[in-house]
């Protein structure tokens, strides 16, 4: 896991670093942070077992948000970008309200 990904894994990361991330931030929302934010759950719908969908971060394309059938929590503001990436890539994602 890269340094950048580690920082994205926690909203409590250094504020300066957070500000450098382009919006909408695709970073997953950690479990202990869900109460303080407005996350939704996004999961991949696929007939292929173990299928994963990666969306590279705009400011670090080597790193990516990874979505699988189990799902990941993200900020609501990221849903539109995720949906657009899914449409471009020919995959189906499911968005669930918490």
């Amino acid at each position, binding site marked *: 896991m890269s340094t950048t990904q580690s920082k994205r894994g926690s909203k409590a990361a250094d504020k300066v670093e957070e500000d450098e991330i382009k919006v909408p931030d695709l970073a997953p929302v950690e479990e202990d942070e869900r109460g303080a934010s407005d996350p939704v759950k996004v999961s991949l719908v696929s007939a*292929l*077992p173990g299928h994963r969908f990666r969306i*590279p971060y705009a400011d670090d*394309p080597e790193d990516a948000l990874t979505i699988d059938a189990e799902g990941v929590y993200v900020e609501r503001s990221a849903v539109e970008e995720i949906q657009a990436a899914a449409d471009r*890539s020919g995959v189906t994602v499911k*968005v669930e*309200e918490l």
Partner: protein
Amino acid sequence: VINDLYNANAVVVGQAATLFGPANTPLPALSALSFTDPFSMAPWTTFTVNGAVGPVTSFTLTYKGQTTGVLTVAGLTAAQIQTALSALSTIGAGNVIVTGAAATGWQVSLTEKVQGGTLTAAGTGGTVSVVSPLWQPCGATDAGWTFATNKSTTDINIEEQSPSVGQTITSQKVQIEGALAEDITRTLALAYNAYVTTTAAATGIPGTEELNPTDDVLTYAVAMIMKQFNGNPRLIYAPAWTQLSNVSTAMRRASAKRMYPVAFGTVCNVSAIRIINFVSPAL
């Protein structure tokens, strides 16, 4: 091309269609299957809209960027949802069938020509979830599919008596075999027991689909649909199959067709295998 499995003389001339999904994906409700069009994909690709009960007072549905008007839950009928979805430019009249009710969930079936998108819901007062379909057609084959059952048996003998007095089945496996003819990611994943990672395009980097063959045993639900001699549908289904047969495909430039032979074998209790012949239409 999928067509009648039998000709007028009850000779097998046509093909069956085979679909797959994650292990234990259930069959569509039999009530949703078309008696007159057995190969209709619509019931296999049905969205289920749940949760429009309790605190939810209204919701909207969105498909391929188009959103319905507000649907008020009180007194809402399946026909009203169907009308709302038919009005979307991304669906259109005649391309959607909605059944069900608020308490049990609504089933939304789209015709093949408008499939490929994700149906989403936004509720007022609570959550409305949409369960997406999981079945996918395996795709075209070179010479159709075969359906076989392989049994290994053991004779039961009584001492000093040469003829066996019975047999036991030590193992039984049902197989569906075919040569996949579409040279696409889905075909390679099935044939080579591979995980797939799809990566969206980013600035300066193209989008990709990467396949990684694995020693993990990937398990699928598989269903085969066909017509009987009388034109009625027949289904063959089991919840758990693997595809671990040897595959040899020429990766070269040649006039010959590029085929991916696969053989799904059941890894479930034989009683979980269902072969359903439709006899008469619903009343």
